């Protein structure tokens, strides 16, 4: 008999292929035509709408919903893509419950927001499904821009720059594009290879050359890029992972959650993926939840997320927490790891209770052990680059338009300071930096391009 949820250790094939396929199907199945009309009809078309204000990319949400309601999903998609070229992915991964849908007046009034995320997906899926790319390039400007990082920030910047007529070369260390969309988010949020399909769709604009396997610092250098291009946009994300400040953190069975998720996203065979019977995830952000839920869906028997602060400080939204608990994940608060137990391989994690009621996190001295044969660290990522740029708190300092301390270099996304580390924020930063680059390269007065 193959492995089951009861099998000890970190093993593959706890569930059969059918159960795994079911577990990793679309988290939010798309709306059909009628559902979309009904959902769209609930929008009040608010004046100066709070949802638009809450959207980091400022999508005109009431307008695109009205366009859906009147049977013109293609026009709706154009409204979305004008502001957010990765509107398709954002429709899937945005924490809408803490952005547009949180401030929807119907959420405030009734606790039932207009389904903005699902409607956005309906519109963008319609257009992308038809293979339409409703943008054309302006005349060639003769300018060349390097974009480092093919994640949301880099792709948004590249598309906007190409649209303005610039020639763009995108460099990425990985063998394919998409960044965290491809490697870093839970599989059930982006099924059927959507991240790659979106990259392909985005590249239809033309004028963008993709150079994969090109890591900054290894294969390419900022100095050389500055020489070879008229401007450089850095959207390199956070490649490093914080170290676990607990004794025994290097034992077998201790993994980085981002690697766990990346491996899961890239596999062709979910039954071949290894997962522990008792999994402990350390951290409190989206990555922690994604790793925990997917561990459970792979067949782990007990999955615990341990976060050192209280619920109110947790980076993962209430929706994400509820999703995790609905899948059987246990979330414990005010517990910080002090020691990983085990003789070679992990057998458990010792935690100390904390008091986060004041300004500082205070250990209480009370400890307890959670049995574990696999530990996933999701305790934050760090910038893996030092190219002479001004950094604050480990991130690149940028102006409101994404300009760094260095001439002809802009930055955006998770690697830059300011803004939440969200896909949608990265898109906004990439887009805005692109417009600033455009204005700079073309001289004043071109910013509206």
């Amino acid at each position: 008999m193959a492995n089951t949820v009861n099998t000890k250790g970190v093993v593959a094939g706890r569930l059969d292929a059918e159960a795994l396929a079911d577990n990793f199907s679309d988290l939010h199945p798309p709306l059909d035509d009628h559902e979309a009309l009904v959902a769209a009809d609930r929008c009040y078309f608010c004046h100066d709408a709070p949802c638009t204000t809450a959207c980091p990319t400022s999508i005109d949400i009431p307008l695109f919903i009205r366009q859906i309601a009147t049977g013109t999903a293609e026009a709706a998609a154009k409204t979305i893509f004008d502001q957010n070229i990765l509107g398709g992915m954002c429709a899937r991964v945005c924490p809408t419950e803490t952005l547009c849908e949180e401030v929807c007046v119907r959420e405030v009034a009734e606790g039932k927001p207009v389904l903005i995320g699902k409607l956005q997906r309906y519109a963008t899926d319609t257009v992308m499904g038809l293979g339409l790319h409703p943008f054309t390039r302006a005349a060639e400007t003769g300018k060349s821009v390097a974009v480092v990082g093919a994640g949301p920030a880099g792709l948004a910047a590249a598309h906007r720059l190409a649209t303005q007529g610039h020639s763009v070369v995108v460099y990425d260390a990985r063998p394919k594009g998409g960044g965290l969309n491809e490697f870093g988010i839970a599989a059930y949020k982006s099924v059927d290879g959507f991240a790659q399909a979106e990259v392909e769709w985005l590249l239809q604009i033309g004028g963008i050359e993709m150079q994969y396997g090109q890591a900054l610092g290894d294969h390419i250098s900022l100095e050389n890029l500055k020489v070879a291009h008229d401007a450089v946009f850095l959207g390199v994300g956070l490649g490093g992972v914080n170290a676990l400040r607990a004794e025994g953190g290097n034992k077998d069975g201790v993994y980085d959650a981002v690697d766990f998720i990346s491996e899961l996203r890239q596999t062709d065979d979910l039954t071949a993926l290894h997962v522990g019977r008792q999994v402990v995830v350390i951290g409190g952000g989206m990555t922690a939840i994604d790793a925990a839920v997917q561990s459970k869906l792979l067949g782990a028997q007990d999955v615990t997320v341990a976060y050192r602060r209280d619920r109110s400080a947790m980076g993962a939204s209430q929706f994400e927490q509820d999703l995790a608990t609905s899948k059987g994940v246990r979330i414990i608060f005010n517990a910080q790891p002090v020691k990983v137990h085990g003789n070679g391989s992990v057998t458990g994690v010792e935690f100390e209770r904390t008091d986060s009621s004041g300004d500082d996190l205070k250990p209480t001295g009370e400890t307890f052990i959670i049995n574990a044969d696999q530990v996933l660290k999701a305790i934050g990522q760090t910038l893996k680059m030092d190219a002479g740029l001004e950094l604050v708190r480990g991130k690149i300092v940028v102006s409101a338009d994404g300009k760094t301390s260095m001439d002809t270099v802009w930055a955006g996304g998770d690697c830059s300071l300011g803004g939440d580390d969200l896909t949608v924020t990265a898109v906004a930063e990439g887009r805005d930096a692109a417009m600033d680059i455009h204005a700079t390269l073309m001289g004043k007065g071109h910013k509206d391009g």
Partner: protein
Amino acid sequence: MADLRSEFVGIKSPNPFWLASAPPTDKEYNVRRAFKAGWGGVVWKTLGEEGPPIVNVNGPRYGAIFGADRRLLGLNNIELITDRPLQQNLREIKAVKKDYPDRAVVVSLMVPCVEDAWKAILPVVEDTGADGVELNFGCPHGMSERGMGSAVGQVPEYIEMVTRWAKQSTRMPVIVKLTPNISDIRKPAEAAHIAGADAVSLINTINSITSVNLDLFAPEPMIDTKGAHGGYCGPAVKPIALSMVSEIARNPVTANLPISGIGGVTTWRDAAEFIALGAGNVQVCTAAMTYGFKVVQEMISGLGQWMDEKGHESVASVVGRAIPNCSDWQNLNLNYVSKARISQDDCIKCGRCFAACEDTSHQAITMSADRTFEVLDDECVACNLCVNVCPVENCITMERIEPGKLDERTGEFVEEEFADWTTHPNNPGCVAAE
């Protein structure tokens, strides 16, 4: 439970809800189902004269417009009068009436504008034991092209002529069904009254095209790329019907002429509104066609509950109760001053009132950075648009400025006494106030 029994031009029914002459009343099978469901009466689908049966189109007869979630708001049809043999209809009417003596069975008729045609059909209808007849002067499509239906209803002299023939040829009550496709509904009603009609019923359907197919550039409903206007009915036409019913009820000439109210009655409330405006009963079609015959049960329970709550003992006691309050514009009190009031507790901050007032009205609502919306009393003309566009019922209301208090918009104190346009100094035809 209130007494819902109804007596309309001498025809008794257990409740005032009749099915209108239309597809639901085209045959015995449907009418029996309707009576089992609780309908108080039916007006049998219009019979024509003896002869080759009527021919209907074989493509779509209906078109519709929709609200949210495909809620049917308006229905359009191009069906003609019954396409079944006259004798078969008569046999079925007789059979149904025999089994349901307590229900109203009225027969709708449409024959050519010659006296002999009416003299021929009325006795055979009378033989069925039917309670009355309704003269179909309303249908605006198809039959009107042949000089019947609304082609009669649009000419008061024809109405008078045919109604006289009918009254002279039968002892049954004669109800005259009016078309709304006319500029002044009072004229055909007066003609019916002068000719001795026992009642009028209205409205029949309104000329309409529900939509246009933009691929084929053809009106809907469409038959082989062509469309003809149909008759519009359903909830969308109710306001038009209410106004027309009230016009007849207010007209001194027809003030005592019984009215059967028709036009978009979908709920008990709709029915109560028609009755309040002078209808002795109501006729329903689209609601039944949309939801089936069972809808009458809500109408019965709802009307009964309302009458109980308000202490109305009978349907007759509320007929026309709103008519004294139906006025003309020139007699509205210009010294009644009100202002919009926004309940901040109820406001959900959508800003629709602001957009409406700022863009299309009187710039009388302000919006703060935190989306608080407030009324400027010195700009508000009490137009009510903010109330109408607000998605939250009763969030915005109109509050009267009491006499003696300052109207900040005009800078004048609100006067106590009634004053209307007829005495207003700006009116060239002003009658000096005594």
